[in-house]
């Protein structure tokens, strides 16, 4: 069976194995060196736990990262891996994915790596729709360099580099990705293993660039940043779980909903039983509603934070199109003939 038949077009072309695999086989022999309690551990465990389910030949999986705490990820995966330089992983992965359609390519990056120094490569990967899955570990801080504010930090944040508070409005990675023509955009949380795994599954299944923002706790430099979304006492009131085809409701008893304000045309909170509650359509060709959903979250307090898949639409991938052109060139012009190439154009012969 091909991956497409399995409903995983993103993995089509990647060799599979019939041998059952284990989490342990996906763990390298390197000691994991994150701080005790770091949210990165949970994500690593989830990825190592979920990958065996895909049944891919392990040697055809590659993890590529930039620089940051999260970017150490590849060292811990018993797959092929490349720990590159700050911000450049999407560019490097583009070359790999476009030239090797038989690989499952994963990028691991942080909020600084992806959105500060690497912002441009991320955006271009998204618009090109290169077939890869990008895991963006957003801890709203620079962990590895010991706690400066990041492009996702809330405005006014006091850090080592901003003793009087940061000045810049943060990026909303979901809005940004949607503005950059992304075909798959999702958000999940380090501590919610089930949700994380289901999003990862959908991301891997997607053919094209899948961007998964993972809220990740940095317990050393930004502890509790997502506490409101995790704490049993608060989370139901603030977390909005998006499910394709389902009405957008939240609250312990789904007592809140999201509807479009008929006057301002923006989205707003209403009662869960309001007949105007919108139904989530991740597959809408127009990204406008996904964008509107992304704006619900308050960048400061994280109130009304949607998680789940915002957008999931099909568009040919850069690599597939590139390979098609190569195939087509061979089909129409025949395979390259070096002697013919060198002798092309005006030649003359001296006897």
């Amino acid at each position: 069976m091909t991956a497409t038949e399995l409903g995983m077009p993103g993995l089509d072309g990647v060799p599979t194995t019939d041998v059952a695999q284990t989490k342990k086989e996906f763990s390298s022999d390197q000691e994991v060196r994150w701080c005790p309690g770091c949210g990165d551990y949970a994500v690593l465990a989830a990825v190592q736990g979920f990958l065996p389910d895909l049944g891919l030949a392990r040697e055809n999986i590659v993890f590529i990262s930039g620089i940051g705490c999260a970017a150490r990820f590849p060292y811990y995966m018993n797959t092929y891996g490349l720990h590159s330089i700050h911000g450049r992983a999407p560019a490097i992965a583009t070359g790999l994915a476009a030239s090797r359609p038989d690989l499952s390519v994963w990028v691991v990056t942080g909020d600084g790596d992806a959105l500060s120094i690497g912002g441009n490569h991320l955006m271009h990967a998204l618009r090109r729709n290169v077939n890869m899955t990008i895991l963006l570990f957003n801890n709203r801080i620079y962990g590895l360099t010991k706690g400066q504010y990041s492009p996702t930090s809330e405005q006014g944040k006091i850090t080592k580099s901003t003793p009087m508070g940061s000045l810049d409005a943060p990026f909303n990675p979901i809005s940004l990705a949607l503005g950059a023509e992304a075909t798959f955009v999702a958000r999940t949380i380090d501590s919610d293993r089930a949700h994380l795994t289901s999003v990862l599954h959908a991301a891997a299944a997607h053919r094209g660039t899948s961007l998964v923002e993972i809220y990740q706790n940095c317990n050393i430099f930004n502890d509790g940043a997502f506490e409101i979304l995790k704490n049993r006492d608060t989370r139901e009131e603030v977390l909005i779980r998006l499910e394709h085809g389902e009405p957008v409701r939240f609250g312990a008893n789904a007592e809140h909903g999201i509807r479009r304000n008929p006057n301002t045309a923006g989205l707003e909170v209403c009662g869960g039983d309001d007949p105007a509650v919108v139904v989530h359509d991740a597959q809408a060709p127009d990204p406008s509603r996904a964008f509107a959903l992304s704006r619900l979250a308050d960048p400061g307090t994280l109130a009304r934070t949607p998680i789940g898949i915002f957008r999931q639409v099909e568009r040919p991938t850069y690599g597939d199109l590139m390979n098609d052109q190569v195939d087509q060139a061979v089909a129409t012009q025949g395979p390259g003939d070096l002697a013919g190439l060198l002798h092309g154009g005006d030649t003359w012969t001296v006897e």
Partner: protein
Amino acid sequence: MTAKEVRELDRVVIRFAGDSGDGMQLTGDRFTAETASFGNDLSTLPNFPAEIRAPAGTLPGVSSFQLHFADHDILTPGDAPDVLVAMNPAALKANLADLPKGATIIADTAEFTSRALKKVGYTSNPLEDGSLASYKVHAVDLTGMTMKALEPFGLSRKEASRSKNMFALGLLSWMYGRSIDGTVTFLQSKFATKAAIRDANISAVKAGWNYGETTEDFAVSYQIKPAPTPPGTYRNITGNTALSYGLVAASRQSSLPLFLGSYPITPASDILHEMSKHKKFGVRTFQAEDEIAGVGAALGASFGGSLGVTTTSGPGVALKSETVGLAVALELPLIIVDVQRGGPSTGLPTKTEQADLLQAMFGRNSEAPTPIVAPASPADCFEMALEAARIAVTYRTPVFLLSDGYLANGSEPWAIPDVETLPTIDPGFATEPNHHSDDSAEFWPYLRDPQTLARPWAIPGTAGLEHRVGGLEKADGTGNVSYDPTNHDYMVRTRQAKVDGVDVPDLEVDDPTGDARLLVLGWGSTYGPIGAGVRRARRAGHSVAQAHLRYLNPLPANTGEILHRYERVLLPEMNLGQLAMLLRARYLIDIIGYNQVRGLPFKAEELADIIMKEDDQL
């Protein structure tokens, strides 16, 4: 064919000059193609402004193309034109200073209007005021005659006048006995879908030829016999094309699919353009969002088992430097083509220079050595591209290939090699674990080949060889992250030793008499001008030796020995003395630099002068 007088010449330098929009590059290309097919040896020098189409009729808007062809082997596009074709007053003014007295000027009178003259500061018409008395001036109404010839085609004035370059081409072709058949064929295919334009241009070329044949203004035509050349099939080729073909050949010879990650930049863009035509060779070209992504993608492709290449010019190399450092740490094959141009910063983007040598050597943080090769002539770009690939693949290392603007756009005849004789490059992918202990077999990505010091290249998809590499320092052998001081010192030295040990051919000296005391050394595109200068000096009775470095890092093993052999070493460079610095440091020899940073290649004559001056002092 003609009843007019035909005089024999051994060499001619022609310069076509006009507005950026006048099609001078195309005219030059066509004349070159016919000249090449005819069998002359030749060398060309295009020269155009950084603006796409600077204001018509202005000095900055002038675009020119110079061609030197001869009945013998030549080395440069010529110091001074024998013939200048000036399509307007600006073209005349911008180029007149380069013309020796007695040279021929063919000027399009239709463009010498008082407005056009004023635009470039002529207060009177030089075609009429006697100021050109020391030249042979042909004032010809090229535009008018072109329009006349094209009347039947019902084109607008503007369209018709556009063909005046073809009229000029026809005229010059007649003057020098070139055929116009190839051009006719070329126009037929270029304008296959635009019949009126096609026919107009063809008529213009023919009209130009016929004008030369009939008018009394042109009393003489010239003949330059083919140059005696070794048997073989030849074509004319620019450096950028030769370099592209060399890359395609390297892909074939190594059986590695080629992946080019690039961002357009003058004068390197044409390599991207050329490579993008060769998809049927499995070539993948990726126009990236910037230079960093271009080299990053190439490196990613290399990790996956492609021949990763990135092409750029100096400012692009600056941006790529961090990633090149990563490639040094990863020890993966990668070719970085730098088509050097005038700097610093944006500098003179369309002009040539060879001032990126030290950037290629040292433009990265910490000790990050890379091999560097540099072709000596346009056609040599083919071989050096293959060499860059050989070194990159064999030693698992990024390699710089330093071309320049002059090589890139200049052209010369090339004896097309037999593809069966091209060297093969063995990627030698790792397929098996390489480290065996009692109870296990492991793959160690930094266990080196003892001979080359190259590490194994195991590409994704190879079962059992899963491994991780990265930019942090790695333990020798296992490749695991290591902060151990002794290991770091060892790895730094080993990376250096690997590059120092790259196998490159010995430096050859041309010292025909064997008694030269002066060695003239060069690298890169100065080969032609230095060679021509040396020939002149020899003709003037000087015994001088010449040697040319095509491998700059590592240097050929015999370099020191050769330098020490001569009393004096003269090193002309189009920079402030970059190679001289490296050689002085290495061999402690007081090398004499001769430096010019003018955006133009050296002239043979000035080099001859300086060579003879230096030799006289010995």
